[in-house]
Every structure is written in C-alpha cells, then in structure tokens.
C-alpha cells in the first residue's frame, strides 16, 4: 500500500499504457502496486520479474474463472482507480479499500477480505492510549487517501487530535517509535506486519472501524465485475479463499462471517465505524457539494504551500548570496568547498535530500516535518540561487569595479554599492522563475507528512473518486499564487530601470 510521488506515478502509468497496447485480448490485465509488499503484492524474492501475494492469487483465480490468463501491470497505489478508469488495466487488486466513494464512482467487486482499522501505539502508552478519544492533542499517523485517514480527519474535529498523512505504510510506524507521532491508525494486516518486524509497538485489539478489500473495475466493465463476483462467491463456498489467506497468514474469524453474508447475497456496508458515528466519505453528497466541503482544507493547504515557499526562498536567497560571494571572493579552499556543495545539491534529487534530512538524520536530530521541509527546500534552492548570483556578479562589467576601486571604495563597498545592486537586477528574472518553480516543487514535501496543496488535492481526489474538480481547483490556486508573483517581478524590474536616488 505504499504510494509513489505523483510524477513518478504518471511516468509509470505512461509506460504501462504503452505496454498495455501490445497485449493480447485473451489476457486479463490487472493492476497492483508491488511497493505495497507482502502479503498483498510483492516482487517474488526468487524472481523479481514475477509478483506474489494474496492479491496475485486472487487475480489468478478470477482470470481462470473467466477463462483468461492474468497479466500483471504495475500501477502506483494512489493511481489505480484512474488507471482502471482510463482502461490501462481491467481490474485493480492491491488491498483496494471498500469505500462509499469507490462504490459510487467505480464498479467494485464484492468484498473478498474483511479488515479492521486498528490503533498502534508505543508499548509504554498501551494502557493510556486505547481509542481515538484518548488521543486529544496528539499526532496520529496513517496512509493518505485511505479510510483510516478520513476517520482521522473526522476525529480531528471530534476528538481534537492531529491527523498526519504519510505516503507509505512504513514511516508511520518508524516515526511512532521516534516519537514524531503518538499512534498510527491502519488496517490490521498492515499493523500486524509492522508489529512483527519492529519491536516496541502495541496494536490495540479494539477496532476503530471495519471495512474490506475489493477488486476495482470501470463502470463500463460491469459484466466482467459480475462474472468476477461469481468466481469470488464460488471461492468463498469451496474454501479456495480461505486457503489463500491462510497461506499468507491473514485468515481470521472475520472472514467466515463476511463470506456467509455475501453467499446469502445480503448487503454489506462499505465501512462500519465502531467508535464515531456519521458516515465516512462524501459519497452521499453530490460532487459539487462534496467539493465545497474541501475548499477550506484546500485553502489551508495553499497557505502551507505559500508560507513554506516564501520562507524557503528567503533562506535560499540569503544562503545563495553567501555562497555566490564565497565563490567569487573566497579563498581557493572556500571556493572548492562551495563548488562541491552546489554540485552535490544540484546533482542529487531534492526528494532524496528531503528523505535524508527528515528520516536519515532522525537518529541525530529529530526535526519537525515542517522545519525539515523548509530546510530541505532552502538548502537545495540555495545551490541554484547561488549559481544565478555568481553569474550575475560576474556579469557586472569589470570596468565599473575598477572605476569604483580608483575612487577609493573598499572591496566590500564595491560589492555593496556597485556590484551587488546591479547583479541583483540581473538576477531578478531568473529568481522569479525559480520562485515559481519552488512553489510547485514544494509539493515534494508531502513525503515528509506535510500536507500542502498538491497533497491535499490528491487526498481530495481519492476521496471524491475523481480528479476533475480537485485538479481544476488546485491548478487555479497555484496560478493565483504564481501569476501575481510574475506581475510583482515585472513591476520591480520596471522600477529598477529608473535611477535609485
């Protein structure tokens, strides 16, 4: 259930789409995300070109039931619905949650596995933090765009806790042990997996909610969905599903109860809350009404984007000026060190730098997510800014510097009064350009659990089951932030064409 950054996801979808065209018609193309790992879908340790997991076996089961051969396509978890909608694959099986929104927007199969949303806490807190209402004022992590996240958002209002969204299901638990969050809400399959691999985690037995995994198909594929449902019902009756889940060690008493209802063709609600009342998701509202509900959180997220971008840029500019001055005026050793810094920061992905600062350095210094995001962006952009300033400083004619020297200015005064002001005018246009780029690059910090505009849009789109309205609103907000910036820069440039005094 781990998610990829959006850009990588789009790239992967594009690759998958190209590959899909060449496939034969007798295949059943199914989409899953091996980043989610066992027991859902994982790369086979003995043959990384193959995948294994209970979702793989269910895909084989359904394919066999409709007399086709399964063909696996890698699609990032967060993009599976969209990939199915556009026909990249016919069915998505990757621990896909049974949400009201998904039921409304897609053709979902009957549930094939019942899970419980459970709280994981540090062993020391096991007695005190048993349910959501115990977590007032505390940070609770989960995977973004999931039922668990939606529950936590509602619990923010109801219980006064703080929901923290992650892009994968490993870091919530490692941050739990580090003390960055006080609890993690995720389904029992994921929680059990982490409890076994990390020590110090207690999983509270009382479920916060229950839901299921389903297969996801496009609405136009309803007949294939109906056929898949019959295959699943047969497998529930003859014990095939039980065999599969026992093999992967996740069989429990919840499953026979679910299967009995489904075999009897009784309705099964998508999500059942044990603790909070009210429905999960926004499926009961029209899309427009639902979208309006998200406006405040989008505006708040835009605020995070804007504040983060402005502060990072301010730091990057300051640091960039110092680096550029050091590279133009410094000793050989200083120049070498600064050049090394610039090349390192420009030559490695900012995403990697953010990871190192937030997770890599956690053993040494435990920075809050926002501070780590700010620092990461500032350090990275400082390298780019410094190159702009260095170029700008070197673009100021040497003759003017010599003229200033013959007038008796010290080198410092030459920089401050003659070289700097002119370099700044030269640097203004590329700086504005970088600031607009930073505004958008700031979306990368969502990997550090900072919910900014793009992340919020993603969450919004996942819960709504559509990208159209959230995507449009997101684009409009980004433009509303970047266009005035461009106008401001043009005004400054015009003003600087006039004399300064």
């Amino acid at each position: 259930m781990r998610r990829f950054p959006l850009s990588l996801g789009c790239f992967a979808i594009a690759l998958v789409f190209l590959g899909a065209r060449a496939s034969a018609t007798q295949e059943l193309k199914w989409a899953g995300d091996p980043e989610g790992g066992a027991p859902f879908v994982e790369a086979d340790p003995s043959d990384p070109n193959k995948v294994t997991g209970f979702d793989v076996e269910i895909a084989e089961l359904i394919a066999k039931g409709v007399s086709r051969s399964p063909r696996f396509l890698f699609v990032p978890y967060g993009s599976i619905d969209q990939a199915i909608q556009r026909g990249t694959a016919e069915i998505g099986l990757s621990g896909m949650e049974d949400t009201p929104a998904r039921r409304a927007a897609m053709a979902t199969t009957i549930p094939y596995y019942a899970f419980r949303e459970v709280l994981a806490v540090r062993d020391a807190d096991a007695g005190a933090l048993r349910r959501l209402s115990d977590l007032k004022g505390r940070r609770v992590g989960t995977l973004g765009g999931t039922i668990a996240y939606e529950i936590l958002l509602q619990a923010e209002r109801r219980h006064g806790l703080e929901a923290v969204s992650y892009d994968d299901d490993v870091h919530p638990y490692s941050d739990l042990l580090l003390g960055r969050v006080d609890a993690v809400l995720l389904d029992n399959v994921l929680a059990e997996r982490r409890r076994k691999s990390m020590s110090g985690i207690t999983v509270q037995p009382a479920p916060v909610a229950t839901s299921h995994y389903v297969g996801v198909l496009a609405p136009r594929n309803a007949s294939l969905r109906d056929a898949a449902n019959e295959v699943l019902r047969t497998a529930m009756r003859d014990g095939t599903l039980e065999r599969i889940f026992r093999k992967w060690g996740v069989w429990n008493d919840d499953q026979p109860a679910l299967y009995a209802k489904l075999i009897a063709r009784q309705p099964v609600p998508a999500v059942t809350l044990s603790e909070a009342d009210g429905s999960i998701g926004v499926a009961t509202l029209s899309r427009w009404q639902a979208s309006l509900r998200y406006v405040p959180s989008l505006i708040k997220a835009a605020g995070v984007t804007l504040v983060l971008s402005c502060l990072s840029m301010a730091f990057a500019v300051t640091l960039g000026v110092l680096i550029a001055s050091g590279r133009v005026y410094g000793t050989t050793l200083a120049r070498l060190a600064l050049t090394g810094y610039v090349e390192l920061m420009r030559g490695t992905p900012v995403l990697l730098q953010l990871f190192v600062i937030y997770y890599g350095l956690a053993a040494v210094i435990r920075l809050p997510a926002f501070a780590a995001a700010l620092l990461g962006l500032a350090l990275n952009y400082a390298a780019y800014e410094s190159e702009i300033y260095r170029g700008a400083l070197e673009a100021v004619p040497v003759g003017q510097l010599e003229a200033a020297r013959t007038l008796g200015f010290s080198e410092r005064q030459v920089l401050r009064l003659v070289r700097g002001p002119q370099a700044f005018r030269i640097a203004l246009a590329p700086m504005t350009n970088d600031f607009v780029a930073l505004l958008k690059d700031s979306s990368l910090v969502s990997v550090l659990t900072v919910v900014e505009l793009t992340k919020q849009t993603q969450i919004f789109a996942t819960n709504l089951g559509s990208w159209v309205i959230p995507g449009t609103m997101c684009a409009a907000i980004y433009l509303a932030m970047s266009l005035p910036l461009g106008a401001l820069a043009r005004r400054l440039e015009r003003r600087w064409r006039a004399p300064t005094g």
Partner: protein
Amino acid sequence: MNTILEVRDLRLSRAGRPILSGITFSLSRGGVAALMGPSGSGKTTVLRVIAGLERFDGGTIVLDELTLHAGAHHPRDVVKKLRRQVGLVFQFHHLFEHLSTLRNITLAPTHVLGVPAGAAERRARELLEALGIEHRASALPRELSGGEAQRVAIARALAVDPPLLMMDEPTASLDPSRRNELGELLARLSDQNRTILLTTHDEDFARRWATTILRIESLITHHSS
C-alpha cells in the same frame, strides 16, 4: 618639492611578453601632461599601474610621499593612500549604470570620505555646472551622450579631489570642436593643486593643450616640454 610623480625604470610583462620596458619620467606639479605613443605601446598600462590597478615587475613609482614597489600586491594602507592621490577617468567612462548622474558623483564622497549627503550633493551640482551638464543631474548613464558621459566621469573623479587626475584617451570619442572644449576645460582644471596626465593619439590636441608631452617610442619614453 615640486615633483608630483616620478616613474623610474618601470617594467612589466604579461605571459612572457614585455608590455613596458624601462619607462622613466617625472611630472612637476600643475599643468597638463600628454602621454603619447603608437597603439600597443603601453600608454593605458602606465596609467593603470600608477592608479594601482596593475602590479609591475620592475622599477618604482613615487607619488608625493608615497612609493610603489615592484612585485606582489601593494599593501592595503599604501593602496588606500594612493586612491586619495590619484584619480582615473577611463576611456569608456565606466559610469555606475544603476545610478543617476548625481549619485555617480556623490557616491564616493559620501561613502569613502564621509562627506554629509547634503554637502556632497551641493559639491556635485557645482561640478556639474562647471562642466556644463547640470541639466543632466537625474539622467541615467545610458541616457547620456558620449561627451556628457565623459564629463560625468570627470566630475566623478574630481569629486574626491585627487591631486593627480589621469585620463585615458579622452579625445578618442570627441569630434574636433568638442576636443577644444575639453582642452579648455582641462586648462581650467589644472593648477598648482591639480596635475593632469592624459594619453592621446591626437598630436594637434597635445601640442595645443598639453604643457608637457611624453612619448613612448620603441618602449622608451622621451621627454619634451
């Protein structure tokens, strides 16, 4: 002592190529001296060396009480004193592009000499008036004609009041009538307290306006008054 500048056996090479080979001359206080010689004979380099912008390999330069020695960088305090003694007007003026005419002139007095802004501005306006360009006080360098820019550059150099004012090829960008205006101006500026040393290719200009003519020929200077 009536000598303001004494250059002795000045030698300088760049990348193994001799630029100056044993230049010797002295200037007495006051008057206009013209340094002449064919292109590439090192006239500009002589001015740059005296202004402390270039190091040199041999010889000495004595300016009033100040002595510049060959070799490495000049000590900081020597450079500081040197800047108070010598002004240089570049052939291409090198005005500060981001500042108005007036600010080009007041920048050094206020920041180097610590003259109060009001006094510096009054003095700058006097200089502009004396040079006949007071109406261009708020213009930017790129808005000035070649002759105007030259006068602003002269005003900028005069604002810190250097006893020795050097000018590199001031006649190069001026037509003949303008050259005479410049000659008159220089004659007015030079007195017991100010000596002018300029380079030029214009023989007529030098004959008419210079009180001293120095020639660099075959890398050796000849004196004639």
